[in-house]
């Protein structure tokens, strides 16, 4: 069935080993074809890359939330509450003062907790310790925890981001 006749080899020449009459045409056509292919590939890749970048999150939520009710926390204890989609920590100290901090450890992002035995904020992941004001006092955390304002209104404890005044 397979024939290696001249007829056959002529039909194989379609790929074009024929000598071009004007040598300048081939490089030009190759450039044209190559740049078209590259351009079309970019037009396929661009939507894919844009698709993979997630849309920006909706606003981080209100700057003011109800974190707890009065009397909900026992003295010398803490509570994690959601603040703008992220965890925050509300602490009632033994002497009856409220503190609110971001609960995201500044080291590698674990959620911290209040340690009643130490009277400090502790991150279990790498033994980072913060004061109840959020200052990083020992272990690997490089920065203090962001501190929030606590406002008492009626029976509710509001937490808000410090206003830039």
């Amino acid at each position, binding site marked *: 069935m*397979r024939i290696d006749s001249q007829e056959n080899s002529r039909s194989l020449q379609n*790929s074009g080993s024929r000598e071009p009459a004007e040598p300048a045409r081939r490089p030009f056509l190759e450039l044209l074809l190559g740049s078209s292919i590259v351009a*079309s590939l970019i037009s396929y890749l661009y939507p*894919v890359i844009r*698709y*993979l970048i997630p*849309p920006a999150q909706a606003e981080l939520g209100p700057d003011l939330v109800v974190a707890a009710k009065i009397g909900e926390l026992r003295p010398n204890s803490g509570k994690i509450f959601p603040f703008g989609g992220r965890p925050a920590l509300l602490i009632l100290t033994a002497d009856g003062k409220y503190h609110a901090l971001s609960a995201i450890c500044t080291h590698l992002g674990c959620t911290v907790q209040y340690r009643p035995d130490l009277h400090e904020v502790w991150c279990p992941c790498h033994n980072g310790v913060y004061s109840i004001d959020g200052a990083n006092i020992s272990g690997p955390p490089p920065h203090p925890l962001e501190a929030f304002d606590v406002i008492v209104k009626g029976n509710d404890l509001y937490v808000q981001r410090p206003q830039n005044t």
Partner: protein
Amino acid sequence: MSAPGNIRNWLDQRFGWDELMAFLRHKTVPIHRFSYFYFLGGMTLFLFGIQVVTGILLLMYYRPVPDGAFESVQYIMTRVPFGWLIRSIHSWGANVMILTAIAHMFSVFFLKSYRKPRELTWLSGMILLFLVLGFGFSGYLLPWNMLSLFATKVGTNMTAQVPLIGHWILVFLRGGEDVTGATLTRFFGIHVAVLPGLATLLIGLHLLLVQRFGMSVPPSVEDETKAHPEKARELRFFPNFFLRELMAWYVALAVLGCLAAFKPWELGQKADLFASAPAGIRPEWYFMFMFQTLRFLPANVGPFAGDFIGVLVFGVAAVVWTCLPFFDNDRRGRSTRWFTGVGIFALAYFVGMTVYAYLGK
């Protein structure tokens, strides 16, 4: 030595790169008046690749739970940059792929490419076609809208007609007695893990068999080349045929892009398990011929339920069609012409019933 030369040497010493290239150089494709049909298999393979890529992209945002599936697809369609494009290409690509797969099957059928020694190529191709239909059926439910919910209810209900194990299949497919969130989870697993795994294995086998036996030449062309050997023409697979195929793929991608841009795939209404079926409920077009047939059947045929007869006939027909090369292995003669007639009837029935289902009402 230049860097590309070094890499080539490195590959050659380890994997016999030059031998592989020599194989590619020697592989040829016969050229005759039916050669265009050789593009259909490669086209289906390309579209499968598109489905894999867009499917993986959809997985980045899709959530397979009843309370989140519809919303996540809505999110993809409206919020994610180019999400509408990716999802529409996935939906359109699925339909075009099934079309090319069916066209590929009928072209192989009428060109008699399934004859000895290619029986297993046909068999693996038929199983691939069933897998592709399974992809379509399972993927249809994933956006979790009204249409897909009821199509899945009806489709899985039909399996209950299978004698003895019918009810068991129904419960297995649905993940319970009814179509619920459990069905969604199950179909998701089937759609993105079970079927892709099986399909990849079978595509590998199918391609291996195609490489092993080369392209089949239809009997009529074979006779002509026997009579006039000097007229036989061949084309190198690489790069000549491959570049032509590549061009066809580029065109297909452009067509998909246009379809997605001008006719973005609908999302519909979120599925409600306790709502009545909406009017105009129907399966995808490739199941329409079965759907229409079942509508024609009376409630009872003799002592049997009409649906049972329908499912039985389609089941037997599918088995016979799949095993075709084992019946029709005669080089020529009455029986093979008879098979061609059966094929024409099958194609006419498929097209006729599909068209009737859309136009008839």
